[in-house]
């Protein structure tokens, strides 16, 4: 069989390659990254409309029903069409190269995983024409059973995206286990690969349960089944259990790969070996496994049997331990290092500070008494945006800048990168810090209108949102112009030691001229050895 494997170089000249079926993991990776970033902008646009409405009390731009539709799709687009699949994009491009392989184990399955995403996105967004989903991304029953037709489209879309996710995870795990080049032992895997393995475990174990639940919701809506019909004895708590069984691990799916990315960046930009490699690797797995045990902390006020609550409080607090191990390890990595504050490093440092705020407030939320006060208030909104935007999105940007030269063969403009970082950091904090206060003072979430006493906090948040929205502009400009005509990048502009830096920028069609055989760890700085050369100029 002749597969459509064509080299991923010179993007603009061969634009057609990127909008057609291609089984080369590097092309698929770029397809993922560009597509998901587009959805990020759409989700952001929805947020800008919401923040405009919320800049003043009263219902001005959107009425309550319209606000619910915007709010639902903002969340759903951001989570299912951006932050979860974007890491598949990174994994697709980098994982095979990092382990010395020439592609994924199942290239056609890989292409299929990507091609589920654009139609799923279209389905979700065209729902606006038939009455968009409006029950929140959490789609609690019985409300979601009664919503307009768009809710069914929403369910179909999420089922497709979950399927794409599972297919990708199967590929990542199989590839990592069976296609490592000689010398890449389990304890020489780059931490990004460890992170993807921990993530894939969650995707395979948890996503199908959501799929089952969505099937039940779809059947209730379309076929008249009675799973969640209260009159017939349907139980809303059942939906919440099913939904959160996936959606809590989902948040680790959203952040573990990002932690893997910053684990790659810190050693390179401090010129020091990573501190606690094994602990970071094992912590990723621990977070993954523990992540499957905490879901009902989203249900403390749901009417769940009270005896079930305390165990979840305990597991939810315990999961902070491996996370803390990672944070201390990263700090120990950069401590006394020769630190270079270029954009990937700036975003990684931003990641630590903002994820920390989000993570610690998560521990507050794990405490049942505290959660009872702030559940469904803006405190939760602030928490989730700090971990997801301050955390995961910072890590995505860090990865985009870090690997930009490798993927595109060109170097981005560092000054624009720094500007982007500054606007992003200030904007994130300005948008979301006031929300903690608003929540504790009692402002509920998912509302278009609020009591006048919350006005100044909301004005601050809207200002932050404007700054955040504008911060994407220098990035987009930088990315496009640099990709088109930035200075050509060398194979290893950051002088990293993982295998992707040993090949040209962009990598050749089969990644390596010959399978590499590796005899050192991925972060062995300070050992007397030769710098990696592009494979064709290998020393031996």
């Amino acid at each position, binding site marked *: 069989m002749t597969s459509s494997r064509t080299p991923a170089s010179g993007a603009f000249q061969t634009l057609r390659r990127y909008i057609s079926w291609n089984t080369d993991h590097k092309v698929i990776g770029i397809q993922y990254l560009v597509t998901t970033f587009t959805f990020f902008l759409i989700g952001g646009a929805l947020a800008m409309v919401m923040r405009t409405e919320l800049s003043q009390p009263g219902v001005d731009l959107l009425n309550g029903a319209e606000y619910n539709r915007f709010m639902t799709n903002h969340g759903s687009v951001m989570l299912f069409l951006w932050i979860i699949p974007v890491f598949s994009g990174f994994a697709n491009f980098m994982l095979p190269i990092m382990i010395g392989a020439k592609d994924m184990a199942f290239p056609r399955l890989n292409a299929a995983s990507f091609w589920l995403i654009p139609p799923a996105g279209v389905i979700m967004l065209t729902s606006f024409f038939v009455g968009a989903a409006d029950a929140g991304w959490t789609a609690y029953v019985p409300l979601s059973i009664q919503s307009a037709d768009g809710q069914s489209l929403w369910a179909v879309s999420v089922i497709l995206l979950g399927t794409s996710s599972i297919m990708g995870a199967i590929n990542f795990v199989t590839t990592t*286990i069976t296609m490592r080049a000689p010398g890449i032992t389990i304890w020489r895997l780059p931490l990004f690969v460890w992170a993807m393995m921990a993530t894939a475990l969650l995707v*395979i*174990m948890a996503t199908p*349960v959501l799929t089952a639940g969505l099937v039940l919701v779809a059947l209730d809506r379309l076929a008249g089944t009675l799973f969640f019909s209260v009159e017939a004895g349907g*139980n809303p*708590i*059942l939906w919440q*259990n*099913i939904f959160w*069984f996936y959606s809590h691990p989902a948040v680790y799916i959203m952040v573990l790969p990002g932690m893997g990315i910053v684990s790659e960046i810190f050693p390179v930009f401090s010129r020091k070996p990573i501190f606690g490699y094994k602990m970071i690797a094992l912590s990723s797995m621990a977070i993954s496994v523990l992540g*499957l045990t905490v879901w*009902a902390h989203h249900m403390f006020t749901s009417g*769940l*049997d009270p005896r*079930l609550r305390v165990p979840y409080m305990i597991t939810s607090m315990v999961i902070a331990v491996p996370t803390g191990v990672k944070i201390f390890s990263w700090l120990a990595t950069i401590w006394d290092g020769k630190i270079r504050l270029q954009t990937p490093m700036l975003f990684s440092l931003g990641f630590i500070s903002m994820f920390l705020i989000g993570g610690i407030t998560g521990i507050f939320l794990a405490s049942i008494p505290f959660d009872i006060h702030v559940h469904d208030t803006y405190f939760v909104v602030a928490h989730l945006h700090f971990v997801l935007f301050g955390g995961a999105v910072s890590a995505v940007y860090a990865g985009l800048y870090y690997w930009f030269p490798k993927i595109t063969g060109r170097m981005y403009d560092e000054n624009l990168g720094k500007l982007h970082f500054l606007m992003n950091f200030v904007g994130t904090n300005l948008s979301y810090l006031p929300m903690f206060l608003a929540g504790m003072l009692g402002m509920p979430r998912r509302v278009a209108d609020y009591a006048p006493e919350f006005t100044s906090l909301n004005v601050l948040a809207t200002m932050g949102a404007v700054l955040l929205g504008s911060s994407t502009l220098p990035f987009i400009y930088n990315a496009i112009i640099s990709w088109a005509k930035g200075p050509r990048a060398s194979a290893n502009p950051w002088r990293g030691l993982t295998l992707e830096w040993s090949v040209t920028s962009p990598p050749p069609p089969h990644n390596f001229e010959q399978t590499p055989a590796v005899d050192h760890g991925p972060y062995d700085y300070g050992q007397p050895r030769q710098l990696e050369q592009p494979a064709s100029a290998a020393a031996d």
Partner: protein
Amino acid sequence: MSQAPQEMEHPASSGRLGYGGVFLLLALVTALEIWLGSVGVLRSVRTAFFLVLSLFKAGMVAAYYMHLRTDSRLYAYILIAPAVLLLVFAIIAAVP
């Protein structure tokens, strides 16, 4: 994919029991279950039996027909981990 050399190591009968032996065993256990289902034994005792018997049957199919007995342990873990997780979830979700 040429598999001929390795595959010849696997005889048609798997282990002492053989595929046919496993089949007879499964058929017998199923018959036993159906009989138990129609007899008026105490519900909770019956339930315990059914759970044990079905676990046994599933295990036999997995071990002998799916070759988990002879293949890499990893495949077995990949099957058992979600099964255990599912059991825990089903129990928690069953609470009213």
